């Protein structure tokens, strides 16, 4: 049994025809009914539900408040390496992109860590490209050994690993995994991942489950909105989260909803997801899985992030840079080696001040290695 079986079983359900067949009454009913069956998720994501965004917002806000209170967890990403063997059409780190590549040395990792920690950050997300030679597991573990001194919680967003490797990483001190399927549509997946180890759809699809088995206490999945029809993508993302939540009750399951941003590559085929759409998505997922963690990244503008905050968001990044060593190592003039452009450049202090002004408690620490 793998999530792939569930995905195959539901292939036909989130079709354009089925989404359009959802009536206004069915959509309205789905808001109040509760439950996590696939038909409810379909109705919450349907065009008909757009008429009910306000009641959806009220319900989503109430559920978020009940389960997470007036709190928001803050984290910062730290890029360790941008070497990558993949040709992902949408990504700035694409192996074919001519860009300066680097892997942080242990001394540089320590320097970045010291800086990030000085801003009050306790939850760190480390990232690498997909290059086992340039940033092997042993290197990542070496970095974690340094980072443990500075942060209470370390999550990793790196290439897909085997279960044993995840267990190894967990023992080394990494407690969370973030790994996006990017698209659940196998055909689109095959098209946008032109070459590289990431081309293996199934190995990636099952990676979050392997991480949960390997002992990660938090697993975050996601779809890169813009590669394919968002309704279909979010439907399968929601089912993926439910699958993991049902089977790995002791693991905190979260989702991320990155929307494609401009980047240094040449991906032009972005299928738009509007602000209204992303709002509906966040609320639909909150109503579908009330305890789900939902992360909103700095890809979104400061203004939109603030509006979406009460509707289901539980985690936000602050003080983000998507460049390797971007916190402390100055890039030569004219050089851009970031993965994507961020839209909310506020630092940790500014983000905390915003949250406080909105009546939210910024939570810097919500975990500890034990």
């Amino acid at each position, binding site marked *: 049994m793998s999530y792939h079986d569930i995905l195959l079983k539901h292939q036909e359900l989130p079709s354009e025809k089925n989404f359009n067949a959802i009536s206004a009454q069915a959509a309205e009913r789905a808001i109040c009914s509760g439950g996590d069956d696939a038909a409810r998720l379909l109705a919450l994501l349907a065009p008909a539900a757009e008429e009910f965004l306000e009641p959806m917002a009220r319900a989503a806000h109430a559920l978020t*408040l*009940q*389960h*997470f*209170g*007036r*709190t928001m967890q803050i984290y910062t990403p730290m890029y360790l390496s941008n070497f990558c063997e993949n040709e992902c059409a949408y990504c700035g780190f694409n192996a074919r992109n001519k860009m300066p590549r680097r892997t942080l040395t242990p001394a540089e990792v320590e320097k970045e860590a010291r800086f990030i920690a000085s801003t*009050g950050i*306790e939850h760190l997300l480390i990232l690498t490209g997909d290059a086992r030679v340039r940033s092997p597991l042993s290197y990542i573990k070496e970095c974690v050994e340094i980072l443990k001194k500075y942060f*209470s919680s370390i999550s990793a967003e790196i290439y897909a690993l085997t279960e044993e490797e995840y267990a190894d990483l967990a023992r080394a001190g990494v407690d969370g995994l973030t790994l996006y399927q990017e698209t659940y549509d196998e055909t689109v997946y095959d098209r946008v991942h032109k070459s590289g180890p990431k081309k293996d759809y199934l190995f990636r699809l099952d990676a979050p489950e392997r991480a949960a088995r390997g002992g990660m*206490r938090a697993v975050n999945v996601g779809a890169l909105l813009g590669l394919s029809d968002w309704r279909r993508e979010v439907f399968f993302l929601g089912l993926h989260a439910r699958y993991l*939540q*049902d089977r790995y*009750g*002791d*693991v*905190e*399951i979260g989702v991320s909803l990155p929307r494609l941003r401009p980047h240094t590559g040449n991906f032009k085929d972005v299928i738009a997801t509007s602000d209204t759409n992303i709002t509906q998505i966040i609320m639909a997922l909150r109503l579908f899985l009330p*305890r789900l963690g939902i992360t909103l990244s700095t890809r979104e503008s400061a203004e939109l992030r603030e509006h979406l905050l009460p509707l289901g968001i539980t985690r936000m990044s602050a003080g983000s840079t998507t460049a390797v060593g971007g916190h402390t190592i100055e890039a030569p003039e004219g050089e851009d080696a970031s993965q994507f452009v961020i839209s909310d450049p506020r630092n940790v202090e500014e983000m905390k001040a915003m949250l*406080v002004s909105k*009546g*939210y*408690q910024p*939570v*810097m*620490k*919500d*975990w*500890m290695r*034990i």
Partner: protein
Amino acid sequence: MTMEDLLTLGGRSIKSRLLIGTGKFASYSLMKKALEATQANIVTVALRRVDTGSKADNILEYIPKSCILMANTSGARNANEAVRIARLAKASGSGNWIKIEVVQDNKYLLPDNLETLKAVEILVKEGFIVLPYMSPDLSMAKRMEDAGAAAVMPLGAPIGSNRGIKTRELVEILVREIRVPVIVDAGLGSPSDACECLEMGCAAVLVNTAIAIARDPVGMARAFSEAVLAGRRAYRAGLASPASEASASSPLTGFLRDEAR
């Protein structure tokens, strides 16, 4: 009432029967005001939330010195993790009161009684004052009591659900059969829920979400505090409820005692 009605718990005499949880508040200063408004004596804090690195972000700085700090093991998935968290709490100066919370179910946040019991057994031996959060199951509560738990803390409804004392029938049995204090923890949504728990003979309640997410947390904290007082008074005054066995009435057949029967 002539004598002060104190709760004896962990070798201490406790005045307030409203224990407060510290999650979900909009700010630590607001939480502090709520704690002060209730004159809470026992406050529980998730150790994983304690950020000793920063004074402004350290929740412990906002807990009145008069309160007993009861660290909890929130985040623990098994006995082993709960034990490690408890030891860390003690080592970091959070005292030896520990609320054991072992949850393997992030969907409903229901406790794992078996792992909780294992943690109770270990931590009592290490000298902790142990208060286990549990599903109201009599045999488990007895085992926890036998293992030396200072109280048992059955849930009224799932954490954060604000649904009230849905487990009433089972909690009543614990009140009748368990000698250590029974403290309802989790699920209470309104002051009347808390009042009901005290009326039925529970020694205390622990409330967090219903206070933290109220429009006016300080006002709600005060309301809970008054409801707890009223419930306790009703219980002491001999409310005729199925659980109030303590209020024995004068036997109507007492005259038969003279007969050798």
